[in-house]
């Protein structure tokens, strides 16, 4: 049996079968997209790279070239290092808690329980809410003496009340909970779609052979679900590195920077008018995302190929 790859049959359509058109026609069709993309995506990113080599406040002429100083400064800036470490903590928690949780719920919705459709709709609902709405509502729930604390009081669990968003030791984990609340439905829906594409016969055959549900999950579902899970994990990792909106609305990175991320740090520098420094930070975020993406693609791709017996 061949392990499934991520390529669709359509993608392997030979180029020779496709129509041919003059270059100018191709260019005319691409023109709107290329213009938009060039002006508002590519050009700003190149500019970011350029600004990152200058000490610049955004108003004066761009003439104080400082080389890699901004990057060195970020590396030795404890506030930036803290922000980076917060991104990493959220990333690790997302990979090891949020995605497995989403997988569990996807399995649940893929089983024969009643009301699956309505449960899927409701589980996904937080994803359509804006980060701002999510952040503001949770801030109200988690504020001192808010809904959660009073709820805990009401059931006699007074000892469990905390300053959920004001305690520097706790705030990052509270934020992670809010992030998961908003995004688990997204991962769940992706994984569920992957589950529904798996051929039923394998599980039926396994259950006839007396495999337990755990064995059937471990040796059939999980390997076949590999490509889908990797997409989910990848998006989760990139999301963790680029985290901004939800954090900014909920805590502004505080208290005393205990929940800052690279992006909130960047915005702080921007507001201080440190355009060069902020640009360097944005390049670091992009660079990290790119490295992760390339590395991930290599490793994930290798594993998919190993399944086919072509490698190793």
């Amino acid at each position: 049996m061949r392990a499934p790859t991520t390529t669709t049959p359509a993608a392997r359509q030979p180029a020779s079968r496709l129509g041919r058109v003059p270059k100018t026609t191709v260019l005319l069709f691409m023109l709107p997209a290329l213009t938009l993309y060039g002006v508002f995506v590519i050009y700003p990113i190149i500019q970011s790279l350029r600004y990152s080599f200058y000490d610049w406040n955004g108003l004066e002429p761009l003439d104080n070239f400082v080389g890699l100083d901004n990057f060195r400064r970020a590396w030795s800036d404890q506030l930036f290092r803290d922000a980076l470490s917060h991104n990493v903590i959220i990333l690790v928690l997302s990979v090891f808690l949020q995605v497995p949780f989403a997988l569990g719920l996807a399995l649940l919705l893929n089983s024969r329980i009643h009301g699956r459709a309505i449960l899927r709709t409701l589980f996904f609902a937080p994803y359509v809410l804006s980060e701002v709405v999510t952040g503001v509502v949770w801030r109200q729930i988690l504020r001192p003496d808010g809904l959660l604390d009073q709820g805990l009081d009401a059931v006699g669990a007074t000892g469990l009340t905390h300053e959920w968003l004001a305690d520097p030791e706790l705030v990052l984990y509270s934020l992670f909970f809010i992030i998961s609340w908003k995004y688990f439905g997204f991962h769940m829906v992706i994984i569920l779609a992957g589950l529904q594409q798996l051929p039923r016969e394998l599980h039926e055959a396994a259950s006839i052979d007396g495999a337990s549900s755990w064995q059937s999950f471990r040796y059939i579902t999980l390997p076949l679900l590999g490509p889908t899970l990797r997409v989910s994990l990848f998006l989760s990792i990139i999301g963790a590195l680029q985290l901004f909106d939800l954090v900014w609305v909920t805590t502004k990175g505080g208290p005393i920077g205990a929940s800052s991320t690279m992006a909130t740090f960047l915005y702080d520098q921007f507001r201080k008018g440190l355009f060069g420094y902020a640009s360097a930070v944005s390049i670091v975020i992009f660079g990290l995302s790119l490295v992760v993406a390339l590395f991930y693609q290599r490793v994930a791709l290798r594993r998919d190929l190993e399944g086919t017996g072509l490698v190793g």
Partner: protein
Amino acid sequence: MVDLPLDPPAVESPSLRRRKWVGHGALYLVAFFVLCAIIIPLTFSVLGGFRTNQQLVQDPVGFPNPWTGSNYTSILQSGEFWRQVVNSTVIALLSAAMVLPAASMAAFVIARYSFRGRELFYGLFTLGLLFPVAVAILPLFIVLRQVGLLSNPLGVALPQAAFGLPIAIIIMRPFFRAIPQELQDAAAIDGCTPLRFYWSVMLPLSRPVLSTIAVITIVGSWNAFFLPLLVLIDPDKATLPIGVNNVSTQFSTDFALVLAYTTLAMVPALIFYAIAERQIIGGLTAGAVKE
């Protein structure tokens, strides 16, 4: 011929049936807890808007007693809220109106024709998935300042459309690919130009994927925060998320008002979700699973 029963009647031992029951009970229990975790915050927000601030501080848990509608009515009667609804709508529609033609034209030639650099262009667009707006935000701000698009709906819609291109092209390409080549050959023999083929054959056949992209773009734009925060300096141009954020910081002690405002901002998104659930979920999973 003898009729053989294909499926022997299932014989379940009582212990197996009990185990199944326990298993199912656990599943329902988990589903129930997750459901609570989602519904409680939303209900809290809706009900919170019906309380006075006093009530909210003293007893945020039960039903409002008495129900007060003044938070909601005062917001609904203010011009500010409606202005923000209009601004958000205008920007969302503008973004979709730009993404759809630009992305579909590019995806069309990439999917249907062979030319040099085809994969390169596709790769360039997919690379865009890795660019968060945050990376480009400073130069973007400077560009928009130079061309005078700060505090202008276009200043948000144009970059949003540009950053929406990658996912739109990624979702559209396989869809365009799946349309039979014979159709294109026949059209070409009949002297149909690529533009004509795109307009009269591809687009009508691709309505599902076009509506998916439209819906995803609109939802993304409706929820966007970072870009509008920087670009829309004039308070009159603020979108709904900016409005919610402003109210929550300006009236940070009037919890009930903040919750009412948040609830009202939530409603359009939830209604839209109820209508377009199929497109939203279908689009996201198409991008992730089929590629």
